[in-house]
C-alpha cells in the first residue's frame, strides 16, 4: 500500500499562520500536537466525548479530535497556549483554575479552560445553570468538578472586575 496524498494546509493558530503538510485524514488535534508542537491540547478519548481536546474555532468550542485539520484552514483557532496575554499575564480562567484548585493531574484542564473561556468571553455573569450547561460536556476524573465550578464562577468575577 502506498503512502496517501498529502496536502498543504494553512492553519491560523493563536494569531499566527503556519503551513503544514499532512494527509486529508489528519485530525486537528494531531496536527496541533504533532505538526505544530502545541501539546497543550490533550486527547482523552478520540471520539468526541471527553472534551480534553477542546479548542476554539472562531470563538466557539470545537472538539479537535472530531475535526480534520484541512477543514479549518484559515479559520481562527485558539488553543490553551493562546490564552495568556502577550506579556504572559494569565487569562482570568487560568488565574481562577489556579486559585481555586480547579485542577489536579491537569489532563482535562486545557479543555475546561477553553470551554470556560468561550463562556466567559460571551457572558461574564453566568448563572449556575449556564455554568453547568457550558462545562457539562467535559469529563474530569480527578476533581469531582466542585472546584472547577468554583473556578468558572471566579473567572467570571475576575473578568468583570477587569472591565471596571
Amino acid at each position, binding site marked *: 500500500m502506498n503512502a496517501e496524498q498529502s496536502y498543504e494546509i494553512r492553519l491560523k493558530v493563536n494569531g499566527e499562520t503556519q503551513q503544514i503538510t499532512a494527509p486529508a485524514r*489528519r485530525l486537528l488535534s494531531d496536527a496541533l500536537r504533532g505538526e505544530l508542537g502545541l501539546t*497543550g491540547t490533550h486527547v*482523552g*478519548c478520540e471520539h468526541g466525548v471527553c472534551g480534553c481536546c477542546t479548542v476554539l474555532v472562531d470563538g466557539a468550542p470545537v472538539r479537535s479530535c472530531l475535526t480534520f485539520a484541512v477543514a479549518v484552514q484559515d479559520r481562527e483557532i485558539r488553543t490553551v497556549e493562546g490564552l495568556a496575554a502577550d506579556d504572559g499575564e494569565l487569562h482570568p480562567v487560568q488565574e481562577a483554575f*489556579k486559585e481555586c484548585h480547579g485542577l*489536579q*493531574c491537569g489532563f482535562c484542564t486545557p479543555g475546561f479552560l477553553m470551554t470556560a473561556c468561550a463562556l466567559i468571553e460571551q457572558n461574564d455573569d453566568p448563572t449556575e445553570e449556564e455554568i453547568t450547561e457550558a462545562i457539562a460536556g467535559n469529563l*474530569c476524573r480527578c476533581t469531582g468538578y466542585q472546584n*472547577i465550578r468554583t473556578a468558572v464562577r471566579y473567572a467570571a468575577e475576575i473578568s468583570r472586575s477587569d472591565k471596571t
Partner: protein
Amino acid sequence: MTPQSFGRAIRRTEDERLVRGRGSFTDDAGSAGLSLTMVRSPYANARILSIDISEACEVEGVRAVLTYSDLPGRLVEPLPLLIPHPSLVAPRTQYILAKEHVRYVGEAVVAIFATDRYVGEDAAERVIVEYEPGEAIVGIDAALGANLVHDDVPGNVAADHAEHVGDVDQALVEAPHVLELNLDMERSMGSSLEGRASHATWDRHGRKLRIQNATQTPTSVRFAVANILEIPDEQVDVFAIDVGGGFGTKVIHPWPEDILTAWGAIEYECPVKFTEDRVEHFISSSHERAQRHQIKVGFDEEGRILGLDVDFVHDNGAYTPYGMIAPLITATQLPGPYKLPNYRVRFRSVYTNTVQVTPYRGAARPHAVFSMERTIDRIAAFLEIDRAELRRRNFIQPDEFPYDLGMIFQDGRPAIYDSGNYPELLEKVLAMIDWDDFSERRSQTPPGRRRGIGVACYVEGTGLGPYEGGHVRVETGGKVQVSTGLASSGQGHHTVFAQIVSDELGVPFEDVEVVTGDTRRFQYAVGTFASRAAVMSGNAVAEAARLVKEKAIQIAADALEANPDDLEIVDAQVQVKGTPARGIPLAQVAVLANPLRYSFSEAARAATQFAGAGDPNEPPIKPGEDPGLEATGWYSPIRATFASGAHAVEVEVDTATSEVEILRYCVVHDCGRLINPLIVEGQIHGGVAQGIAGALYEKMAYDEDGNLQNASFMDFLMPYCTEIPEVEIDHLETPSPLNPLGIKGAGEAGVIPVSAVIAAAVEDAEGFQINHMPLFPSELHEMRLRNAEVSQ
C-alpha cells in the same frame, strides 16, 4: 519571618505550567521516530491457529511487524508476577504478545512499529489472525463452573485464603441472633483521562535508554525494563513528568508496550512511542471491583457483634500480575472501626476471560466497607435500633489504641490501628447532616419522591512501607532542590513536599523546587499507591531536610565561631538565635560546604570571607563527610498508619424513573495532621465523585462472549459535572504516632465508603434491602418489582 507552610492552603506550584498548556505528559514527547500499534484479540478465549502479517508489512511506513515467535531473549517469558503470596496457588501473567492462546478481548497479539499511528492502524487492519474460539468464562458463576480459563488451573482458583481471630463457629452458635447477607458489586475501572503511554529513546553514543512513561512507579519500570532487556540498570532512565491520572492502573508494570517501546528504541535506533487510545484503555488496562460476599453475623440484644463470618469470591480476570492484593485488602479492612472479637474471612480469587483486575483507587476497600456497613444496618433494622446508635455500640474506643486486629495486613505486618477517634467522627458527620431531624425533612418529601438517609464509617490502612527516600540539596544560588522517587499524577506532591522542606529547613516555600518520579534524580522508590506518598516521601524529605539543616548549622558554626546549639535557620539564613545580624545566608553555607570554591557567583565570592584557613593538618573533607550542602533521608515505617472517616448522605429517589438524586453529601475525614487542606479536600472531592460513579453509573458491561460492550465514553457512563453534587467536608486531626509529621494518607479515602452510604440511604428511602451495587435506575426498578412481588 516566613510563616509556617505546613497546614496552610497554599496554592499549588504545579498549576502555573499546567494552565498554560506547558505540561509534559508522555504523549507530548517528540513525534519523531516510530509509533507502536497493537493488534488485540477480538476473542475472550481462543487458540491462535495462524498469523499472517505479509500484507501488513507491505504498508508504506511500516518498519516491523512482530508476533510472539519474533520476540528475542527474555521477551518470550511471561510478564513478572509482582507480588507473590503463599495463598496465591496458581498465579498467571500474560505474555508480551500472546503465545498460542488469548484469554480476554484486548490481549496483545501483534506489535506494529510504523512511522505514525495512522500508518500503524492501516497495517493493523491487514494483519490476519486465525483463531479457534472456545467458550468464554465471564462472571463469578461461570468461573465457579466447569470450564477453565487456564487449562492447568483447576476450578479457576488463583488464590484461596483464610484468616480468623477468635472462635467464630462457637460465637455464632452462642449468639442470640444470627443474620445472613449476600452482597455483590460490579466491575468498574480507574479510567484516568490520560491512558497508558511510554516514549523510549536510545542514545547510542551515551548508551542510555531514556523512557518517559505514564507510570506511578518509575523506579520499578526501570528495573523491569533493564531486567527483561538484559541491560545494566545504569543504562536505563525512567521518568514520569506529568501523568494524567493513575488511580492504581498505572502502578502495574511493566505493560507489554513498556517493554516493546524500550526494546524497539534500541533495535531500530530511533524513538518509539506508544499511546493507548480510549478503547484500548477499556479493554487492555486493569479493571476492579467485581466481588460477591456471603456474610453470617451473630449479635446480642444490644446489637453488639459477637461473631462475623465472611466468605467471598473475587473475579481477578484473566491474569494476576499484582497477585491477590485486592481481595486481601477486603479481608483485612472489613472490620473497619468496629470491634470483632470473633472474625473469620475466606476468599477465593478466580480467573475469568476478562481484563485483569488490579487495585483501583480504594483498592477493594469499597467492598469491605459495603459488606461491613450493610451488615451493621441490617442488624439495626432487625433490632429496630437507630443505625448511628448501633455503630456507637460497636466502635473501637479512642482509649483502645493501638488496637490489634489480630490479622496480617497487606504489607505482611500485623494490622494494628495506630490512632483514631471513631465516635467523634460519627458525631460530627451526624451533626453535619442533621441526622436527628431527618424524620421531619422526610415528612416534607415532595410527591413522587422518596427520601432516605445513610451513614457509613471506614478505616483505611495508608502509608505502607517498605520505604521511600528523599534528597534535599541547597544550591549555591539559594534554591533548594528536592527529589523523591515516587511519581505524581495530580496529588500536588510538588507543593506539599515543598511545604514540608520549607518548614524543616527554614527557607521560604518559593525557594523550594521539587522533582518526583525521575530515576535520574532519585533511584530507589516504591511508588504512588496505597495512599502512601505524603506519609512516606513526606517524612523522607523531612528527614533529608533535617540532615541538611544539621550540616548547615555545623558549617556555619565553624564559620561564625559559634556553638552549633546556639544557631537556628530563619528565612534561609543560619544565625545566632534571635540575632539576625550574626548570620550567614544558607546559599553561602552551600558554597562553604564545597572546599572547591570557584566563584561563579556573588554568593560564592561573598562566602569566601567566612572561609577560615582550616586546619592544615586535616584534609579539607574529613572522614565521614561529603562535599555539598545536601543529604538523603529515608523513611521506613514499622507498619501502616490507619486513616478513617465517616460519610453521610441524604437522597431522594424518583418513584417513576427510579433515579437517585443526592441532596446532601457530608464527609468527616481524619488523615492525621493536614499538610495542605486545599489539596486534601481536592482529593476527597475527586474520591467521592469516583465513588458516586461506581455506586450509581459505572459498570463494565460484558456480554456472555466476553465482549466489553461499553468500551467507550459514549456507553461507559463516567459522570459529568451534572451528576456530581457538592461535597461538604470537615476534618478531624488525630496525629499518627508512627511518623514524626503525624500524617496519614488521604488519596483514596473519598471513594471508600460511597457505595456503602448510598446503598444505606436508598435502602432507607425504598424500605427494601439493597444488596447489589451499582444502582442504575434500571437495576433499582428491577429491585422494586422483585420486592413488590415478594411482599404480595
